[in-house]
Structure formats: C-alpha cells, structure tokens
C-alpha cells in the first residue's frame, strides 16, 4: 500500500512561508495531479514528498511509514523532472539502470528490468545512444524508464511535459495514462496546465498561494468549483466571471458561466457584439462584449456563421450558473 499522507505540513524558506499548514491524502494507486499557477507551492510540495526539501513542520507518511526525515532514496519514490535530468555522458541503458547499479543488484535481474522498461517504453533500439541523440519525447521516456526500473511505491512527476511541443505533449499524455493503468502505482503529478490535470487525474488538488483551494475528481472541480479561483483555473476556455449586480442579482458577488453554457437566443437574454471569432472545427469560440457586463467567451457547437462586429443575443441557463460570495467561495443553491 502506498497512500501518501501529508499532515500539517509547513514549509518556509527563511522568512517566506511557501506552504502554511497543509494536509493532504493521496490515495493508494491514484493518479493525483497538483495543479496551480506558477509560485503556488505545488513543486515545493512534490519536493517535500521526494525528500529533496525538508518541511519546517509537519509529517509525511508513505504507506504506514513516517518518512519525514528519511533520505530521498529511502522513501520508495522515484521522480521524473521537468528537464528529464538525464546524465549526458551515459548511454540510455546506463541512465535507466544507474540506480540499480548503485544498489549492486545482480546483473541478471538488472538486465531483465532494463529490458522490460525498454520494451514498455519502446526504447529498445535507443539503448546505446546518448541522451543528446534522442528527441524530446524519447528523452522523456528514458526519464520515465529510469523511474520504472526501481519499482517505486510512488511516482512523482514535476511538470514532465512542459518542455515538449503541443503534439508530443498530447501523445505523451496518453502514454502516461496508459502507463498508470499498466503499472497500477500511486502517481503524483505537478503541472500548471489544467488540460493535463483534467485528462490525467483521478484526483486533482488545486493549489493557490501554498494552500489547497479544492480537492476532487476532474468533473467535480469542473461542475462544482469551490471558489472563484478554481472556477477560473479549471476549464478551457475559462469560465466567464461577471458581477451579480451586472446580471440583476446584487445579492450574489460573482456569477460564473461556462462558455458552453451560453447559447445564442432569438430574443431576450444579453445583447452582445462579437469581437473575435475562432473556429476550431468541432467548436466555434466567440469573444463577445456585452454592455454593462463586460467581455465574455462563448463556446458554440460546430461551425457558426459569425463574424467580428456582429450583434447577437445570448442566453445563460440559470441552473447552469455558479454563484460565489464576496470572499470568492461557492454559494450552494438550495433546491426545493
């Protein structure tokens, strides 16, 4: 069992507290994604779990063991870095089995593990190459291979796809999801990309300024964001956030409407002027301006015949709206 539990973790660098009193449970065999904007403390949290940083206060447990003061190598974890952290002077094979050689594992077992990792990651034909002779995606796979061969209890990923181009990122995302299904291990993944979070995670932890804003499944976060921050962070294009006063609901500080929850109406609703129209093929994204309300984003299905400067009326289903109070917290609507 490799549940990861962080209990009342605080991390300060000098006088700057990066993580103030955070508790989190990462379930065994889950794919948990820590997501948040740059500087929110998600990478620090990952490094605390890895043992590369020591918490100022609090306890870290992996399985049943308190690993707070343990060396990284004693925690049963492995980590894939954003830069891959491959050793440039070693071949792919040496990069992958470097840790096994350090433990003086018998050669037969070491070679078997190397061969299995190479097979899973389709690296067999590159084992003799140096990292500089590989593409970005292949390097990423080597870094993952290095993690796999150690059979860790917990895999840690620190923004592993951010150095890849868009197409490769999509491909690697699928490969990571398949990897998780095949090795069935606990994975903790840090990213600032909410698309990665939504597509990969069983559980998403949204972080802001060292605190957890919300924990939940991707669809929980999407359908019932607990705060304005989560509402704005999860979903692409971003949720429209307008003041309740502008929509005639002064008792609500902020009303959130997902772009796909706005519909073009024949009459009534909000009168808007299109500014820019983006056609994505499956969808049409219209950026519109509504007098007294502000700029909104609308996602319309299929090819809509719209152009810049065009007037249209928009209708937002009240049942699909999200309400937030003045502190930015979600207001749960009372249903009859």
């Amino acid at each position: 069992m490799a549940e990861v539990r962080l209990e009342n973790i605080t991390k300060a660098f000098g006088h700057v507290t990066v993580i103030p009193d955070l508790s989190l449970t990462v379930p065994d065999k889950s794919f948990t994604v820590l997501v948040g904007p740059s500087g929110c403390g998600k990478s620090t949290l990952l490094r605390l779990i890895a043992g590369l940083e020591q918490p100022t206060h609090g306890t870290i447990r992996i399985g049943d063991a308190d690993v707070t003061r343990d060396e990284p190598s004693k925690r049963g974890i492995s980590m894939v870095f954003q830069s891959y952290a491959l050793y440039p002077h070693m071949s792919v094979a040496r990069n992958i089995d470097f840790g096994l050689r350090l433990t003086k594992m018998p050669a037969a077992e070491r070679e078997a593990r190397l061969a299995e990792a190479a097979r899973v990651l389709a690296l067999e034909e590159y084992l003799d190459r140096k990292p500089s002779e590989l593409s970005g995606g292949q390097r990423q796979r080597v870094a993952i291979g290095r993690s796999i061969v150690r059979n860790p209890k917990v895999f840690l990923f620190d923004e592993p796809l951010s150095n890849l181009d868009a197409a490769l990122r999509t491909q690697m995302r699928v490969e990571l999801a398949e990897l998780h299904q095949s090795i069935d291990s606990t994975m903790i993944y840090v990213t600032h990309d909410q698309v990665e979070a939504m597509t990969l995670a069983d559980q998403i932890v949204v972080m802001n300024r060292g605190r957890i804003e919300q924990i939940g499944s991707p669809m929980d976060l999407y359908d019932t964001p607990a705060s304005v921050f989560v509402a704005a962070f999860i979903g692409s294009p971003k949720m429209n956030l307008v003041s309740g006063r502008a929509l005639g609901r002064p008792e609500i500080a902020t009303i959130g409407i997902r772009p796909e929850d706005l519909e073009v109406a024949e009459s009534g609703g909000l009168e808007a002027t299109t500014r820019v129209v983006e056609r994505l093929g499956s969808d049409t994204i219209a950026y519109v301006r509504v007098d007294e309300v502000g700029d909104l984003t609308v996602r319309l299905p299929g090819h809509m015949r719209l152009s810049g400067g065009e007037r249209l009326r928009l209708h937002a289903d009240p049942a699909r709206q999200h309400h937030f109070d003045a502190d930015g917290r979600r207001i749960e609507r009372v249903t009859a």
Partner: protein
Amino acid sequence: MTDMTLPPDHRPALGERLRRAASNGRLSAALILLPPALILFTLFVILPLGESGVYAFYDWNGYGAPEDFVGLRNFEQMFGHSVFSVAVANTVKIVAVSLLVQMPLALLLALLIYRQTPTNAVFRLIFFVPYIMAEVAAGLIWSFVFDGNYGVTASIATSLGIEQFFVLADRELAFYAVMVVIVWKYFGFHMMIYIAALQGVPEDQIEAARIEGASRTQIVRHVQVPHIRPAIAVSAFFAIIGALQVFDVIIPLTNGGPSNQTQTIVTYLYEFGLTRLRIGFGSAVGVVLFVVAVLVAVFYQRIFMRKGTA
C-alpha cells in the same frame, strides 16, 4: 548572351570574394585590426624565438654580435650536465605533483565550497589569495616560514623539544618544501576553474542521483566529475604548462640550492645561462624548453581536448 547563373556550389573567384569583403566591411576591419596584433606578436614572440634558435648554436656572452659558432656543443653540454638532469627530474616531479596532488586538492575544496553562500564566498577568497600574491612575495613569506632560526619550523622544533632544522638547506627536504609552496600557490587557480564548472552542473541531475540512492562520493564520481571533465582537461593543461615554467617561486626560496637540488628547467636556464653570461647556452636550454612545451601543448590538445573528449 551567355547564361551567368552559377551552380549552387560554385565558389566565387578570388577577385569576387575580395570585392564582396571590401563592400561588406570585412576587408577594412581585417586591414585595421590585424596589423597591430601581428606586429606586436612578430616583434615580441616570433623574432626573439627565432633569434634564440640562432644563438643556441653560438658561444656568446650577450655582448656584441655572436660570432663563435659552436654547432650542437651547447646542447651536448646541456644534456651531459648532471644539474640539467636534476632540473628535468624536478620539473617532471612538479608536473606530477600538480596533477596528482594540487588538482585533486583543488577539486576537493571546490566541491566543498562551490555553492553560492556567504561563507563559501569568504573561503573562496581565502583560498584564492595565494594565487593573486606575487610569486616573489610568496617565496619570501615561505622562506621565513621555513627559517630554522626564527620561522614557523623553528617554533615547531622548539615546542617539540627537538633540534632546530633548516628545511630549505636540506638536500633531501628542500624540494619537498618547494613543492608544498607550489601547491599552496596555485591550487586556488584550479579550484576557481572547478567552482565555475561545478556551478554549471544541473542541480536536478544531482537530485535525481540522490533519489536513486547515490552517496555524496558517487554523485561526485558519476555526475559531477563527468560534467566538469572539459574544465579538468583545461586545468590539467594549465598545470602542466605552468609546471614547465616554474621559476619565480624558487628563486627567493632556495635559488635552486642546496647543491642545485631544487633547480627546474627555467631556473637552470637562468642560473647557468643568464647569470653566467652564457647566452648561447641559455638559448639552447630555452629552445629545448620551447620544443617540449609545444609538443606537450599539441599532443595534449589532440588527445584530451578534442571536441567530444573534453
């Protein structure tokens, strides 16, 4: 009318290339910037070297024109002279100590203080002070340290209750003392090269090795040293060339003594060439030293500093 289109790989004629160079300013830049360097290099390097090569075949005291052509006699005398053998052996020993003691010491200290902290900055400065000190001053300071009457060695002898000893006057010990001073004087230079290189080693590779269970020594061996191999190659090159040229630390320390036991090739040149007004003989020593230095430089660069190796 003929077709004037050139094939893609056609190299323009010299006249065309000159015309292009003149029009884009490269020719005028070369004509303005090249002569000063070329003239200075010719006057102060090429000509003296050439003249030295000529004087090596004369018995000449430095006054008037060299007239007494002696062929290879200077070289024969030099290679037959026991002190020259001592000087060569000592130079080889200095090369060995530079490579086997000074460089590992510099690397060890660099590994201890390469991270950027205020304390490390202080230590870096302390360790670098010997290098920025004038060689003659360093030699004089250490001659006081080794002074058997009033120096540190005298204090040690007194505190241990043993007879005072004179390190620099001892045929067996003097050269060890010289080597101590050379290591002390130059390790800071190599340490700085390593510090700069170590700061360029990506931190996440070190962290990845930590996660994989590498000890501090294993990280140094498997991650850091391979990364700074080019810097080590350059540092070793400087160490070898520097060792071949050791001179001004030795003069205030021992002046090559006792009984010529601490001569190096350059002090030998100075002692038996210049101070005895045997410029021709000194030139012959200089020619040999120059040839050795060039051979070392060429072969070292070919073997250890090729692209991909260093």
